[in-house]
Structures are given as structure tokens and as C-alpha cells.
């Protein structure tokens, strides 16, 4: 018997606008929110939505991401009938060694993986977004409408709409037109890059797209327009809640800061039904020292705080020395801030040391990025 729904997470992006943060790892493996990596969000959403088979498509710097995903144990996806499978771009029979040329091509190159699962529906996700979402509810909408493709959309402001792929819909949410980054948007329903396809249709369109020489092999640019042109049934599914694309250093910093306010993301799971699962680092509980002060901040296990921390997010095993001051900053795992150092409005990358007495970004106009890696 085939699976009803299989999820495919596109996790190959270079994330070059994250600069040094993605010098050594793919964007989905970038740390977020004190103890997570970005990909924990789509993977936990899958687990919480009752999806038990997930393919993770990797390309850029795939080693750390691949070993992090492993067999899906961290998200409870390692049972007898469940699995997370890492699907890197690879050498294949006949075509030889190829990279994933676009989002649609990445799925097309793994069509045999999907065929083996024999799914009725396929959920396509991006590995770069921070949000909590019940995909089962989206699938119900897809089935009720009898759709060939359902696209999750977010209602954005008119100003923002020009930055997104916009779905123009009828009253019943059926899509009649798709516009990529329109100068004069007709609607504010932005595509979140989350698609549910009826697999038969997806397979057919991917096969056809493979043969088109002038195609970008992209869902937004090629597959959706082709389906619209053929009069297929495309529907929008409106998502309400916190959603953030953390594509730049600024937006990554802002998304971390969002956790300090009462955001809709509800990491604290006050509703108790939607945990975000992640790696456990075997660290001791956090220690707040006798002279420390910690306010309006997130601090994770393994941290030792002896200085002043405010408006900041501290990941695993961060150490803040006596007299040090951390303001409005994100300290990634293993960061050491020595005695008397001061850090303002910064992202400090994994394993970086801020030397004793050093003062970083006191002006605090832009977000500063400190890293042992470099990347232009």
C-alpha cells in the first residue's frame, strides 16, 4: 500500500545572503532560536502533522546538514514505517553527475524515490522558513477542493507584495493567475513555497518539464504557469500565523529578536500540541552566576552567564564572562565572551571568541556579524 502523503523538503540552497553564516553549512542547517536549526521547523511540522516519510533534498554544503538529519530520529521519524531520507544531488545512470538545476528539477531527479513510496499526494516544502503549520489541514483543503495543486499563501501588506510570488484568486480561492514579484500587485496572497500536488499530476508535469530546453525547472516559473495554461485545478490555502523567511543576516537577527516578544510562533508550546523537536546537546543545565543579570533573553542549556545579558538569544554552551555586557545580540553555539567585553546588536557565529575588553558595534546601527569564517 502506498503512502497518502510524502513530504519533500528543498534544502539545497546556498543562502549566500547569510554571508559567513553559510560559509560552511547549508542554510537549513543554520542555527536559530537558541537551540534549533532552521530545518527543525519543517521537519517538526511534518512529524506533528502525522507525515511519516520525508525526503530532504540537499546540494550546497550537504555534509553537516545530512548528518544532522540522519535517519530522522530527532523528530521521531525513525520507526518501522517512517523515515527521513537525505537525497543529495548525485551521479545517476545514463545522465551522469548532475546538480539540481531548480526546485522542480530537484524533485524530478528523485522521481524514483517518490515512485517507490507510491504516494497519492506530495508536499513540497522549503527548508529555510520559520513557522508552525498543520499540513494535514492543508491536505484536507486540497482533497475537499479536488485540486491538482494547492499553494499555501500568506496575506502580506500591499507594499511587501512586490517582493513575493503573488497568487491572484477567485472568491473560492481558485488561482487564475500567478505573478512573480509583480510591480503592481493585484492581490496580497503571497506564495510560501509550500505546495501539495496530487502525485499523478506532479509526475506528469515534471516529466514534461524535463524535456523543455528553455525551462528554469522551477515550480514558480515553470510548473505552475504550465498547469494554469492547461486549466488544471489550482487553489490557494491561506495560512494565518507567524512565518518568516530568514534569508539575510538582518532577517535572521530580526527573527531571533521576534522570539523575545510575544510572537505567534509560541515556541513555549503553551498549547502543548506542537513541539519543535531538535538535537539534544548533552550539556549541563545553564548556570547563572552570582554576579550575573539576565533580562528579556533566551538562554539554553550548557550556557554559563556571569555578565550582563539583555535582549539577546544565547545558544548551547555560550559562556559570558564577568563584567561582560551583551545587548540585543544572537550568540551561536559555543561562543565565548571574555571578561569585560561588550557586544551590541550582533550575530556572533558558532565557536567565535570575543576577547576580554573588546567592544563590538557600540553604535548599534546595523547588525554586526562576527565569524571565524569569511564569505563575500
Amino acid at each position, binding site marked *: 500500500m502506498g503512502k497518502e502523503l510524502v513530504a519533500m523538503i528543498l534544502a539545497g540552497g546556498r543562502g549566500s545572503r547569510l554571508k559567513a553564516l553559510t560559509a560552511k553549512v547549508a542554510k537549513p542547517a543554520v542555527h536559530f*532560536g*537558541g*537551540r534549533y536549526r532552521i530545518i527543525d521547523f519543517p521537519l517538526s511540522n511534518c512529524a506533528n502533522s502525522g507525515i511519516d516519510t520525508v525526503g530532504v533534498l540537499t546540494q550546497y554544503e550537504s555534509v553537516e546538514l545530512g548528518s544532522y538529519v540522519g535517519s530522522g530520529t530527532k523528530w521521531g521519524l525513525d520507526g518501522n514505517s517512517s523515515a527521513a531520507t537525505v537525497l543529495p544531488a548525485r551521479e545517476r545512470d545514463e545522465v551522469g553527475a548532475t546538480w539540481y538545476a531548480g526546485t522542480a528539477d530537484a524533485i524530478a531527479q528523485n522521481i524514483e524515490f517518490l515512485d517507490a513510496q507510491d504516494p497519492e499526494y506530495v508536499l513540497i516544502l522549503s527548508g529555510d522558513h520559520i513557522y508552525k503549520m498543520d499540513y494535514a489541514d492543508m491536505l484536507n483543503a486540497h482533497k475537499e477542493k479536488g485540486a491538482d495543486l494547492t499553494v499555501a499563501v500568506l496575506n502580506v501588506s500591499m507594499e511587501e507584495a512586490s517582493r513575493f510570488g503573488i497568487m491572484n484568486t477567485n472568491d473560492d480561492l481558485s488561482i487564475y493567475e500567478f505573478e512573480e514579484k509583480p510591480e503592481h500587485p493585484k492581490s496580497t496572497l503571497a506564495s510560501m513555497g509550500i505546495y501539495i500536488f496530487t502525485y499523478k499530476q506532479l509526475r506528469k508535469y515534471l516529466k514534461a518539464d524535463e524535456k523543455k530546453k528553455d525551462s528554469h525547472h522551477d515550480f514558480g516559473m515553470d510548473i505552475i504557469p504550465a498547469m494554469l495554461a492547461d486549466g488544471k485545478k489550482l487553489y490557494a490555502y491561506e495560512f494565518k500565523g507567524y512565518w518568516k523567511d530568514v534569508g539575510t543576516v538582518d532577517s535572521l537577527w530580526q527573527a531571533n529578536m521576534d522570539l*523575545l516578544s510575544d510572537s505567534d510562533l509560541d*515556541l*513555549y*508550546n503553551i498549547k502543548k500540541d506542537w*513541539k*519543535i*523537536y*531538535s538535537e*539534544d546537546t*548533552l550539556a*549541563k*543545565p*545553564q*548556570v*547563572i*552566576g*552570582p*554576579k*550575573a*543579570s*539576565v*533580562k*528579556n*533573553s*533566551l*538562554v*539554553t*542549556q550548557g550556557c554559563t552567564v556571569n555578565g550582563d*545579558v539583555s535582549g539577546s*538569544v*544565547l545558544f548551547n554552551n555560550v559562556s559570558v564572562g564577568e563584567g561582560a555586557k551583551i545587548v540585543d545580540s544572537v550568540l551561536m553555539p559555543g561562543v565565548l565572551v571574555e571578561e569585560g567585553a561588550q557586544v551590541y546588536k550582533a550575530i556572533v557565529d558558532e565557536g567565535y571568541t570575543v576577547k576580554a575588553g573588546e567592544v563590538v558595534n557600540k553604535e548599534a546601527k546595523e547588525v554586526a556579524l562576527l565569524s571565524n569564517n569569511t564569505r563575500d
Partner: protein
Amino acid sequence: MAKVVGLINLHSDVDLKGLTERRPVASVSFLGRYGVIDFALSNFSNSGIDNVGILIKEKPRSLLKHMSNGNAWNFNSKRGGISLLYDEKYANNNMYNHDINNIIENIAFLEKAKPDYVVIAPAHIITTMDYSEVVAAHQKSGAQITMVYKKIKDADKKFIGADYLKVKDGVVTGIEPNKGNAKNRDISLETYVFNTDALLKTIKEAQNVSAFFNLKDILKYALDEKKIHAYQFKGFADIIDSFESYFRVSLDFLHLEVSTQVFKTNWPIYTNTNDTPPTKYLKDAVVTNSFVANGAIIDGTVDDCVIGRDVKIGKGAVVKNSIIFTGAEVKPGAVIENAVIDKDALVQKFKELKGTPEAPLYVKEGDKV
């Protein structure tokens, strides 16, 4: 290489008042993140002993949940593993429910593993001990049995009721109860290495003398006829043998010289994960000198405390010198001093909760006060 299996002996654990009303000492929360048994389990794991049996005395529910498949302690390899050994027959018969009967009832565990040596350790002594070093010393001594002891310099205050050893030339010559009448004692850490044959023989002897004899009793009784090697352990060890000592040992970890002896980079303490988010400190949080687990939300004053997972401390609440267990909530303005607040309890503003360091106040699991 010699084959070694471990046994964690929960039969020697003691009553910690309300804390152990519904759970064994082994699964009592420690430092907000661990179960007491995690230290013994991690010691076996870090010592390269991956086949471990747990001799369960009673109230296993919370322990079974904590242990899951042993994955967290690396015991899930296809060789070795964790075995939960329970003596159903005597579960409700206190005099018969001892470690020797448990080993006999579950003898299949040892018969299947066929170890050369068996290391037996308690859960309620918090230590980071490399058992592979103890086994090496045992092999070198030529003795059939080794007992581990530690030189305790304040035995008039700690380890009262535990046994102390008289040691001569590395051999145990006497085993006596510590009555607290001397400062310096060589205290038994209830940790033993047996040649497997010697363990089976000792068990048989015990049954021949008295059906009520446990391991401690027979070692004491038969000492004259046995050569027992004494191994001096020089690292950190402290005992949880009463509610009051649980409180003291926990808060002692707030001293750097204690916690750095236990939390070492080459000796991880494993536990199972709960996927709780980072702790959130709100605008009015004033937290000093405390251990805090993930998932807590703090907006009050916390000083010299151990704060467990998912604990909420409301605005203006003041919590001092106390241990707050997983999921407990302290409402705004409440005052707590020298207290242990058990799981999921709710502390409101009605009355100040004040104990003393010697006699801490206790609030039961799930209670509202």
C-alpha cells in the same frame, strides 16, 4: 579484553519522604534536568560498559518512562543494552524484596551475558567514576571481590548510616556502620567488582545463612573468609540518603568547585531529551547563582536555586535557596525560601513558604498551595 557487565542496584536506595512516594530515588529529578540514576548510567556508558541491568526494587513507572530504550545513554547498540530487572514475586514483600533475590530471579541476565566481571553500583550516590579503572585495579589485585571507598573528611555530617571500611594494605579488614562519631572515615560507596563466579558463590552463601540477607549483609558476615580488595576512589562522590541530604547535595552544585568536578567535557552526563525550548527571561527577571533547565519562563527573583524544566516564575515572585521541579508554577508575588516544590505544583500568593536549610519545606506533586 575481559567482558564486564554492570548492575545498578536500586535496592539500597532510601526513602526521600514525599519525593519517593510515587517514584524510586533513581528517577527523582536532579539539577532540573537529570534523573538521579543518570549519573550511574553515564558512568557505565563512559566506562565502555554497554550491557547494564537495573535491579529495580519498587515503583517502576516513572523509571521505565525515563529509561525508554536506553538510547540516551548509548546502550542501544545491537551488542549490549539495558535490561530492567524486576522481582515481581517479592514486589510487595518488603523483607524478601532485596538485591540478592532480584539477581536470583533474573539470573538469566547474567547467564546470557556470561561476563568475566560484574560491576555493581548504586544510583543514589552522585559520582563520576571510571569503572574501567576500578576493574583494572581489581584484576591486578588478584582478589575475587573489590569494594570501592572514599576518604570522607566530614563523616560526622555526611554518609551517616552508610558503612565504613577498615583497610589494611589494600585489603578490607572490617565493615562497620558510620554512626557519625568521627570526622575521617573510609566510606563504602556501595560499588563493587565481582568475578562472576565469586558473585554467584556469594549469593548462594547468603541464601544459606538467611533468606533476608542482602548483598551488604553477606559481605559483612563473610568478610573473615574472603579477601576483599579495597579500592580508594579519589574523585567526587556525595550521597542522597534523606530528603534533607537531597536538598543539600543539589544546592552544593551551585558551588563551582563541586559542579566542575562532575561536569567535565570528557565525561558527559547523558539523559533523555524533552525538546523543551530555551529558557525565557522576561523584563523583570533577577536571577543569580542558579542552575536553570530549558523551557522555564522567569519574570521574578531567583537566587541560589535549581529551576527545573518548564517552570514558570511570575513577576515579583521571590524564590530563594529552593528547588523547583519540572512544570511547577510560582504565581506573581509568591515568596518561597528553603523549599522543594515537586512536579506540576502551583504556588500562589496566599502564604509565604519558608523552610530552613536543615529542614526544607516540601510541596507535593501537583498540589496547589
